[in-house]
């Protein structure tokens, strides 16, 4: 019985296909509070360098809370809660679909406060999942590659551009390998939902020998160093933070639509100190009142302005719709189509 349930969870857990053992930790750091005693354990997909300013600001406000910060991949964050039942007090992840699945399958606690009540409706789900950043998927281009070519502003523009200058872009396009990157998969599936041009674009990119990456960082580096002309669906927040010290690159936001990923936090059912988790959720939900942190982390806080459709920004909607692309068959189908388009050899 126990075994069948275990396999059941496994089969539902699609991104965790390769790991059966306990979740893999990338790095961890303990932040001792000045007058500590209260401990909050956070598991997160955000790198320590990115998140540290937030923790320090948090401890300035709450000097009694020690923070134990563990970094893991989005799949491993999911594993930690879903399979291992690790007693984390807060799970932060950029994988909205996995976080939604955690909440949907009953692994999250309900939490309500003034701060969460003030979040826009699209930035929370079930009072269990709380978004605290909005990070669009953008195109990052090399200034050098586009000095004679007009910058595309829509996906249709980009398709025309690739058709007109195949030799210019051949082998010089980068994008996520959606088979290995959860974020890349999220952006790709949302694109496929939002526009009919997605598959044509993928087809074209495949024909032009697009290079596939695991992470935004490497793509930006390759653009800066001239190996790529542009990268498609790069995490905007990451690109912005690299912009300062990386010459020769530029961010091109599309006008037709911008998929906006929401970084979310949830308090797991297994939390030992859910109250501290709640305090951290409140802090994260009010990041828009601490713009200096935005400058330090490059994480744009939730703003009430987007959400209406007059804007090209299209926040990915939290809710059961996200479960669709986690479906095993659906994922198989999508990845097969994607692979067929991308790898045409």
């Amino acid at each position, binding site marked *: 019985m126990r075994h069948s*349930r275990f396999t*059941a969870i496994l*089969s*539902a857990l699609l991104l965790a296909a390769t790991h059966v053992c306990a979740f893999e930790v990338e790095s961890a750091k303990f932040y001792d509070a000045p007058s500590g005693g209260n401990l909050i354990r956070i598991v997160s997909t955000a790198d320590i360098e990115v998140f540290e300013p937030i923790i320090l600001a948090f401890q300035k406000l709450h000097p009694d809370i020690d923070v134990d910060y563990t970094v893991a991949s989005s799949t491993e964050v999911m594993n930690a809660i879903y399979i291992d039942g690790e007693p984390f007090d807060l799970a932060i992840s950029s994988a909205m679909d996995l976080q939604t699945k955690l*909440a*949907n*399958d*009953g692994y999250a606690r309900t939490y309500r406060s003034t701060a969460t009540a003030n979040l826009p409706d699209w930035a929370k*789900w*079930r*009072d269990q999942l709380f978004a605290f950043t909005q990070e669009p998927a953008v195109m990052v281009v090399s200034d050098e590659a586009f000095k004679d070519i007009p910058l595309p502003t829509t996906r249709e523009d980009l398709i025309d551009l690739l058709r007109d200058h195949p030799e210019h872009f051949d082998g010089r396009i980068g994008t996520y390998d959606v088979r290995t990157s959860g974020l890349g998969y999220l952006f790709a599936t949302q694109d496929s*939902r939002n526009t009919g041009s997605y598959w044509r674009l993928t087809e074209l990119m495949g024909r032009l020998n697009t290079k596939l990456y695991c992470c935004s960082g490497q793509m930006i580096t390759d653009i800066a160093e001239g190996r790529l002309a542009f990268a498609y669906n790069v995490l905007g927040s990451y690109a912005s933070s690299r912009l300062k010290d990386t010459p020769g690159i530029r961010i091109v936001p599309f006008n037709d639509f911008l998929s906006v990923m929401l970084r979310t936090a949830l308090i797991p059912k297994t939390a030992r100190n859910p109250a501290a988790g709640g305090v951290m959720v409140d802090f994260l939900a009010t990041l828009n009142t601490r713009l200096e942190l935005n400058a330090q982390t490059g994480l744009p806080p939730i703003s009430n302005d987007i959400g209406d459709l007059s804007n090209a920004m299209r926040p990915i*909607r939290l*809710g*059961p*719709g996200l*479960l*669709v*692309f986690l*479906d*095993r*068959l*659906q994922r198989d*189908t999508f990845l097969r189509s994607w692979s067929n388009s991308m790898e045409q050899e």
Partner: protein
Amino acid sequence: MTPTLAKGSIRRRLVLQLAGIAALLSLALFLVVRAVAEHAAEETQDNILAASATSIADALYSERGFVRLELPYSALSMLGTISEDRVFYRVVVDDETLTGYDDLPAPEVWSDSRKNKFSTLSYRGETVRSVAVTRAVSTGSQITDVMVIVAQTRLGLEAISTRITATATAVGAGFFLVATALSLLAAQTALLPLNRLAQSVARRGMADLRPVVTETPAELIPLVQSLNSFMSRLRASLTRSEDFITEAAHRVRTPLATVRTQAEVVHRRQSGAADKKALREMIRAIDESSRSAGQLLDHAMVTFRTDHLETSDIDLGDMIRDICDRLFPTADLKDIQINLDCTDQPMPFSGDPILLQNALRNILDNAIKYSPADSVITVRLTANGSYLIEFADQGRGFGDADLTQIVGRFERGSNVGDIVGSGLGLTIADEVARAHGGKLEISENKGGQGACVTVVLPRS
């Protein structure tokens, strides 16, 4: 007078009963509104679940002999549009889970019909509503039955239910309050004719025994009829007794006159001092008896006439002068002087002359009777706001008798034991004064000993 015992109140009973009915109806309204609305809400959830399951079933296809599925985005996202409920799904092919939550329970009986099968069950610690849709998919050579199960928790439904209950409660309470207020109003209106009747009866004068002619609703007609019949009987009875008294007084007075004459004749013939004294006593007693009989007659007449005043224009000055003149001989017998203080100005008054004469004569007569010999009676007629006719004597006054009771029938002062009297004089005067819209005021004489009786009549 026996105190009226109030047993319950028609108004209260009416209001309570109507409020009770309103409460029952409100409760019924509440239950019906809630039942209908909740049923509608449940049906809405069922419809969306069915739409979701159907859209999944529509996306089933077969590929190389296997059932495949491309899960439509809208199938699950549509469930997220109306509430933030948890969503579970499962696609079963030949008892094997093709995709989804493979511990999501399927209906016990494999539904052979193509109808959607709804059920409410407990899953992962929460109550969920689930629908199972069966679809036959052709996989090349054979047909495979595929069941799509979609389930959703009921938080949204509960929220709607809470809202509906609140609304239904508000509607019910509002209905109850309005109905109660209206029933108060209705009770008030329904009892209005009764109050009107009560007032019209209460407004009547003491001696007004005319039938009630107020317009009354049908339900009150028996009451009014009985009341009128009762009053007519009372009236007949009163008339009978007045007639009896009049008749009796007449019958007594006439023989008394004869007896008095005879007594005087005998008195004149007698020479024995003791006998003469006894005869004088006898004559005096006869006088009093005949006087009483006269007053009884007067009273009967007054009682009758106050019901039907025959008014004419008179001058009070003339009338009082006439009365003083007439009683002058009686006063003179006791060496009593009557001082009339009256101007020659006209004092017009509209009233029943016989009654007024009777009343004033009775007062002056009383004053003479109770005044000691060789004293003065002052009669004063003044006119300012109203006419004041004042009779002040130097008699013994009323002792400590209650001045408000003294006008009662057969009531007399507490210090008149040695004087024969009926106690009707002031009663007559009082009734007459009131019949003319005035009153009788009685006080001790301000100037010194004696009594002061004032008739107050309104100046028209």
